[in-house]
């Protein structure tokens, strides 16, 4: 007794695929008879064609019938042997490597605030970012961003996120960049400039604002996009919570010892080609200057993007404005600092891009966090970017950094390259 290596069901599917493949192969000989002019088609060939059509209709009828009796997810695989079969989606972990490197020149000692900024004259490995992610199951996805630098490996982000909770809710848990402002949620390779804006480095941290914690967001049922988000994160870390506990980890005793971020993100489609995103955010938590002292940061951001969808050049112009105000309780008083940046970026086509940015942060002689910053600081930067493809870019950037507490402005020149390999998730708007 021998066993056939196929089950009844497989046999059914096989016959289904045979039925469907027949008409198309039958059509092929006809396709080769290309030199037959229309006028010479005889009655006989017309009849045989009609019969062919009838057969084809019958085949389709059978297919419909079969398809309604078998599992819909299995039927397609037989209709056309899917080329993706060799790349099963169930275990398709997205892995991408992104390398950012730069050579820089500074006219005097630099004051760069970002952890991945080129910080002195010479060559720099800004970062080697490894980005991983995949659906865990039908409820969660896992995303991780590991950054390899000259100092070692750093878990920039690693979080699980729900895919479809009811009521428009979404929960993230793990370590993540907090939803404080617009740029903070993004990684350097999506930025339009080589370095981080002054306000982000000064008020949030050299790595931006991030921490271990949990975040809940709610997509409201309003007719336009309005998303409310709240997160609670650990208050310590010089890199990523510098306005809060920064380098002093005094531990968490009450729920008030966490950093809370609350935000409202909205989007208005002004025309088909013009969109406006508007965010309002605040961050509140303890600071390390004394028992019970707290810090509040308030921010707003606007992003206006004009992209004529039908332009064959694929050009786009986007304008960003992001401003923040920080109130810190310190022994014997309250310090208020502000900072902002605005940038205009013009993508002429997929290959060329240029942009202009102005940034500012306040300073004062009483600043305890950056004693050197006794006065305001202004910086203007311009960049030109060349992209041979979506996966590589070359960026030339020049800046005039003017901290009013220095005698001379700092002139900066940077040439940065970026290479991306692997499957990297698409970016949000």
């Amino acid at each position, binding site marked *: 007794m021998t066993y056939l290596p196929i089950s009844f069901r497989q046999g059914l599917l096989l016959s289904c695929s045979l039925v469907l493949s027949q008409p*198309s192969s039958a059509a092929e000989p006809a396709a080769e008879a290309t030199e037959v002019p229309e006028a010479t088609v005889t009655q006989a060939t017309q009849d045989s064609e009609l019969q062919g059509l009838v057969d084809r209709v019958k085949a389709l009828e059978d297919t419909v019938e079969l398809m309604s009796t078998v599992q819909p997810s299995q039927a397609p*695989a037989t209709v056309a042997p*899917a080329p993706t079969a060799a790349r099963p989606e169930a275990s398709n972990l997205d892995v991408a490597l992104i390398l950012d490197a730069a050579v820089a020149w500074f006219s005097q000692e630099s004051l760069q605030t970002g952890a991945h900024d080129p910080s002195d004259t010479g060559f720099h490995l800004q970062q080697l970012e490894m980005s991983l992610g995949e659906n865990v199951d039908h409820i969660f996805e896992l995303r991780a961003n590991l950054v390899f630098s000259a100092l070692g490996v750093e878990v920039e982000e690693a979080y699980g996120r729900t*895919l479809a909770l009811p009521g428009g809710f*979404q929960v993230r848990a793990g370590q993540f960049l907090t939803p404080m402002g617009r740029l903070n949620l993004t990684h350097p390779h999506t930025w339009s400039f080589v370095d981080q804006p002054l306000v982000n480095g000064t008020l949030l941290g050299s790595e931006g604002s991030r921490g271990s914690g949990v975040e809940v967001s709610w997509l409201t049922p309003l007719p336009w996009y309005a998303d409310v988000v709240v997160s609670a994160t650990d208050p310590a870390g010089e890199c990523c919570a510098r306005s809060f506990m920064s380098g002093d980890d005094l531990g968490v005793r009450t729920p008030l010892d966490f950093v809370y971020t609350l935000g409202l993100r909205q989007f208005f489609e002004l025309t088909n080609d013009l969109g406006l995103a508007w965010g309002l955010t605040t961050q509140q938590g303890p600071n390390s200057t004394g028992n019970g002292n707290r810090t509040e940061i308030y921010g707003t951001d606007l992003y206006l993007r004009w992209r004529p969808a039908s332009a064959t050049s694929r050009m786009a112009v986007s304008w960003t404005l992001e401003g923040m105000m920080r109130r810190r309780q310190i022994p014997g008083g309250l310090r208020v600092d502000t900072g902002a940046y605005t940038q205009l970026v013009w993508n002429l086509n997929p290959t060329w891009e240029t942009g202009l940015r102005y940034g500012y942060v306040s300073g004062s002689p009483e600043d305890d966090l950056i004693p050197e910053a006794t006065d305001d600081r202004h910086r203007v930067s311009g960049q030109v970017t060349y992209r041979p493809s979506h996966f590589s870019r070359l960026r030339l950037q020049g800046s005039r950094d003017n901290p009013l507490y220095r005698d001379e402005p700092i002139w900066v020149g940077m040439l940065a390259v970026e290479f991306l390999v692997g499957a990297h998730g698409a970016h949000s708007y």
Partner: protein
Amino acid sequence: MVRFAFVHSFDRLLGTARVMTVLLLLASFPAQAALKVVTTTPDLAALVAEVGGDHVDVITMSRPDQDPHYVDPKPSLVVDLARADMLVFNGLELEIGWLPPLQVNCRNAAVQKGGTGYFDASRYVKVMEANREANRAMGDIHPGGNPHYLYDPREGAKVAIALGAKLAELIPDQRSFLLENAKKTAEKLETMAEREAERFRSLSADQRRVITYHRSLVYVIDWLGLERPMNVEARPGVAPTPSHVARVLNTMRRQKIKTIVQERHYPTTTSNTLARMVKAKVVVYPGGASFADKKELYSQRIQRTAEALYGSLAR
């Protein structure tokens, strides 16, 4: 008198309230709510509308004059997806650059991978140019295969059948109508495909030789029995280099090619220059159905484009 007036107006108020209640009830329990379907491309929208008839309410996320590889993932699209019962997309990585963030952000279980309304149309077609050895040095290649299969009504017919089965699952009350309509649509498309292929065969070999801009027309070329010695782009998705354009020019001269075919969303500068130099013509092939503005159905779009292309080649 005053009391009377009050009673009278109170009565009227009650009457209004009654009418309002009835209206509200009518609004909240429509006789049959159409299934909300969001598609990534206008061709898919036109096909869903053709198969689903009045039982579907279709929105397309991109327009026919837009390059479907590069759609901005606008948050307004998140709202559309959040309220959808079904997501129909092209697959083969056509939307890889913009659909995934929308899907995660919309938090709608129905449209997530494996959800009840998740429909990848590419799983039902015969894919051309699948290339597992694809490397990015070759350009913007889709390893799963060429994603522009809906330009060919024979593939559209297969998707129609599969759509009918899926819609029947989601709208069980209309099961027989949907299966029947899907079959009818598929038959119509098959017949049309045959008829047009026959018509194009009447063209001379010279007339059937064309240059295309992007590798997006391989299914049309296969269906209509055209011949395409070269593309204007040397590598898909990468702007053509001057030396490659020179090779295209030579080929056009040598083989007496008189037509360059390309979609509206690709730049025309290079094609126009080439056409001027060899006295050829640039034919703009519509990237999709005029669904959002004209409610054009998929079969109408195929018929329209085939006729226009035939007209250009036969001249």
